[in-house]
């Protein structure tokens, strides 16, 4: 199984600032995804992080607000820009290990915006 490390694990941020979350995988994976889990809610897909090209965003999410980088097959970042209290969520990195058809998740990054 893939081992995924996310940093930071949690942070408290001020309104209007931006924060970048890092996701490191211990093996090369083709498909990496970023999910958001708002308090008491399910997981919502933000975007698919594509290696070497722009991320593919789901409806309701835009690049200006959630810029994503994917410089190689083991690393990705998600930036939450110009944060507001509504952005307080857990942000989860996940990877699809195609050989076993399973989606693995990082521990998540819990952001609180004041």
């Amino acid at each position, binding site marked *: *199984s893939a081992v995924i490390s996310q940093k930071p694990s949690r942070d408290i941020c001020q309104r209007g600032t931006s924060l970048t979350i890092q996701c490191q995988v211990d093996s090369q994976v*083709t*498909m990496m*995804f970023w999910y958001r889990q708002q308090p008491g*809610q*399910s*997981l919502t*897909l933000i975007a*698919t992080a594509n290696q070497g090209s722009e991320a593919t965003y789901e409806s309701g999410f835009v690049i200006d607000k959630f810029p994503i980088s994917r410089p190689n097959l083991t690393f990705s970042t998600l930036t939450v820009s110009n944060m507001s209290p509504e952005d307080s969520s857990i942000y*989860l990195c*996940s990877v*699809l290990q*195609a050989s076993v*058809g*399973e*989606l*693995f*998740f*990082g*521990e*998540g990054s*819990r952001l609180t915006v004041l």
Partner: protein
Amino acid sequence: AQSVAQPEDQVNVAEGNPLTVKCTYSVSGNPYLFWYVQYPNRGLQFLLKYITGDNLVKGSYGFEAEFNKSQTSFHLKKPSALVSDSALYFCAVRDLQRGNTPLVFGKGTRLSVIA
């Protein structure tokens, strides 16, 4: 479009009793079904999956799930609940016809096992 429904927000069960957490799905092609568990302040952990084959799938921690195509369901079950099973459970689906697409998750069901 893919979708998952978990009709119960909360399931309460006494320790030692059997438990069921319900899930129904909708996909245009053949489903690829998962159950994940989330403990407090933790990420999601994989429990089990169904692709093809036997309709009864066995997974981690004594959990199992039964795929029922006619009812488009994939209910999670355990014969004897433990207090340590108390957590948030998510059902998820992917449409096999659409290749390597991300999972769509249900809203989650909070399981509370009472000693």
